[in-house]
């Protein structure tokens, strides 16, 4: 059993009591709410005549169903169902006194992009949201837990969830990332090694030299995909990179109060002698960018490697999954993913929809135009991200290259709005899931990759090693990898 880890400390501080069913009642310090999984929960509260217990600790925005084309964001939306969902959220948050970041606020966006950039997500918190990518907030050294709608009801009514404490697996990611290799590649490498269900029953604590060197946006990308490895939560201990990111953000205290808060943040980091349920080491030194070849995020290879054969896998389940994947993706074992035809390029999401992601892609796009047959969407993770990209002129690079520059939302990650694959289109995607049907077409095919690789795929109309486009860049600065920016 783990002892002295950040997870143990945060759990202990937030544990209210033990419940008769043996679970712990855990206080939720930050509850994030969006339009898709909350209306039923607000309805359940109304049925029981209960109020929201901690409206000050609850924040809402809208992301899943919103249109990302500027001219379709006039209200009411032409999409009647989307309009009803957003109206319900506006009504529910107003009635309950919950802060709602809507279109007018200029801060609307994907919950897991908005809360970090506003300084709402902080070390030593418990964070819950009706979305499986809530682990994202673990990048700050918080415990982010994705929950279902009945649990949203629990949090709204009581400020708590009923939870079982998990085992803690320390993942040491060692090595130095080369030019054009990003945090996305690190988490895909971890999932390749540990599998899509390797984390079931565990919380992942990421550390080691490759993690220490990441900036906050890179760390957010790593923690974001914990659930793709089966771990419901994943976190990184806070350090100077974390504190400097937080300083000056809207919901972070200033001056002396900042120093007091920082003392708490430092106190909850895992002890040097902390005990873990297990420890694994991932060698990330000199890895190449990774791309998926199949229909789950564990079916992934470094770009130079060949698509594996089902016979290469020891486990029966992996062999059967590989057979299904090869059929769906229409590829053969031994084939390279390089040159795999791409119809759509999608850049954005809670994994890779932050400023450094658009910067990394813009470096590749600069001076190039996308393939004439490719439909390319750049969808900022939040309106704050969009404004910053536009301030820096990054949007111009995308538009000049032939990308559509959109407004913030989840968009084609799960296609709950108009942004969807058609037929058996192939999408080069910076998102997190390549499940069958995920991007809106049951025959659609998703190839997950980092943002620079999405840009290169858009230019070539095929999966490409984006590093070919970086050769003439002497600066060597890439978003997501903070060499030189890390304070300690």
């Amino acid at each position, binding site marked *: 059993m783990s002892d002295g880890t950040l997870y143990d400390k945060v759990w202990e501080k937030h544990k209210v009591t033990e419940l*008769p069913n043996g679970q712990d009642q855990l206080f939720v310090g930050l509850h994030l709410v969006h339009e898709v999984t909350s209306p039923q929960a607000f309805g359940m509260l109304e049925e029981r005549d209960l109020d929201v217990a901690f409206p000050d600790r609850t924040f809402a925005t809208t992301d899943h169903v919103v249109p990302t084309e500027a001219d379709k964001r006039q209200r009411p939306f032409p999409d009647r169902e989307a309009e009803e969902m957003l109206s319900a959220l506006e009504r529910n948050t107003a009635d309950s006194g919950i802060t709602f970041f809507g279109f007018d606020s200029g801060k609307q966006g994907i919950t897991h992009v908005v809360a970090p950039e506003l300084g709402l997500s902080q070390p030593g918190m418990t964070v819950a949201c009706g979305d499986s990518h809530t682990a994202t907030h673990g990048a700050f050294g918080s415990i982010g837990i994705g929950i279902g709608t009945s649990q949203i009801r629990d949090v709204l009514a009581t400020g708590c969830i009923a939870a079982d404490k998990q085992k803690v697996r320390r993942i040491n990611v060692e090595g130095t990332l080369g030019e054009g290799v990003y945090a996305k590649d690190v988490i895909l490498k971890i999932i390749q090694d540990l599998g899509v269900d390797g984390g079931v029953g565990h919380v992942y604590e990421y550390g080691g030299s490759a993690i220490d060197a990441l900036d906050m946006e890179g760390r957010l990308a790593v923690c974001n995909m914990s659930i793709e490895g089966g771990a419901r939560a994943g976190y990184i201990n806070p350090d100077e990179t974390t504190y400097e990111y937080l300083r000056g953000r809207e919901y972070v205290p200033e001056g002396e109060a900042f120093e007091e808060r920082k003392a708490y943040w430092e106190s909850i980091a895992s002890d040097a002698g902390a005990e873990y349920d297990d420890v694994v080491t991932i060698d990330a030194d000199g890895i190449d960018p990774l791309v998926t070849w199949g229909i789950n995020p564990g079916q992934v290879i470094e770009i130079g490697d060949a698509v594996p054969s089902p016979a290469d896998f020891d486990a029966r389940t992996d062999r059967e999954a590989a057979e299904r994947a090869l059929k769906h993706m229409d590829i053969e074992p031994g084939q390279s993913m390089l040159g795999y035809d791409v119809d759509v390029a999608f850049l954005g999401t809670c994994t890779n929809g932050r400023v450094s992601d658009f910067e990394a892609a813009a470096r590749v796009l600069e001076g190039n135009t996308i393939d004439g047959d490719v439909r390319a969407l750049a969808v900022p993770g939040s309106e704050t991200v969009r404004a910053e990209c536009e301030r820096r002129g990054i949007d111009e690079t995308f538009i000049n290259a032939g990308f559509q520059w959109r407004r913030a939302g989840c968009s084609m990650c799960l296609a709950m709005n108009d942004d969807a694959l058609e037929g058996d289109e192939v999408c080069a995607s910076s998102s997190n*899931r390549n499940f069958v049907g995920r991007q809106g077409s049951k025959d659609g095919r998703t190839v997950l990759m980092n943002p620079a690789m999405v840009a290169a795929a858009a230019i070539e109309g095929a999966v490409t090693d984006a590093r070919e486009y970086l050769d003439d860049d002497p600066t060597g600065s890439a978003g997501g990898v903070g060499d030189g920016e890390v304070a300690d």
Partner: protein
Amino acid sequence: MADEQHITEVSGTGVPIPGDDIDTDQILPARFMKEVTFDNMADYLFYDARRDDDGERNEHPLNRFEGASIAVVNSNFGCGSSREHAPQAMMRWGVDGVVGESYAEIFRDNCKSIGIPAVTTDHETVTELQAWIEDNPDGDVEIDVEGETVSYGGRTIDVDITDAMQEALVEGIWDTTTLMYSNMSKVETTAASLPYVENA
């Protein structure tokens, strides 16, 4: 507050849903979540998998085993998105209990939240049960939540269930809102002790 409801056993005919890593995007495709209630979710259960290219119903087990109460699944069932829409759709379609090799954690939590026992056993036992159901579509499958067994066709097998789920269902305390609401004064104390919570 909801009345206490003890779930000690569930039974009925079975439906095998074979395949590992069946994610919640397959169970309930995202485009059908654009409704503010769960009322219609049964109509969308495995929507794409149950239809051929022309939109006609295919041979998917859910089309062949209408009226079934016990779903029998393989490993890592319900992975991916946290959407409660997935088990809600199963429940509204008629599923009262699930037997499988393993489940994604959020899916299992969601099952507990809505009172669906989700029990586990090994691969061989699951595939035997799936084959038996194919041969005996009208045969009864019973999950004994308290005794941790599944009975069908005259045989009884041992299964596992998490302590939290078993306790919650058998004692009728799976409505965690009611359970936790009774501790609100303790919640206030915990909140007030946290350095980042103001006005608690």
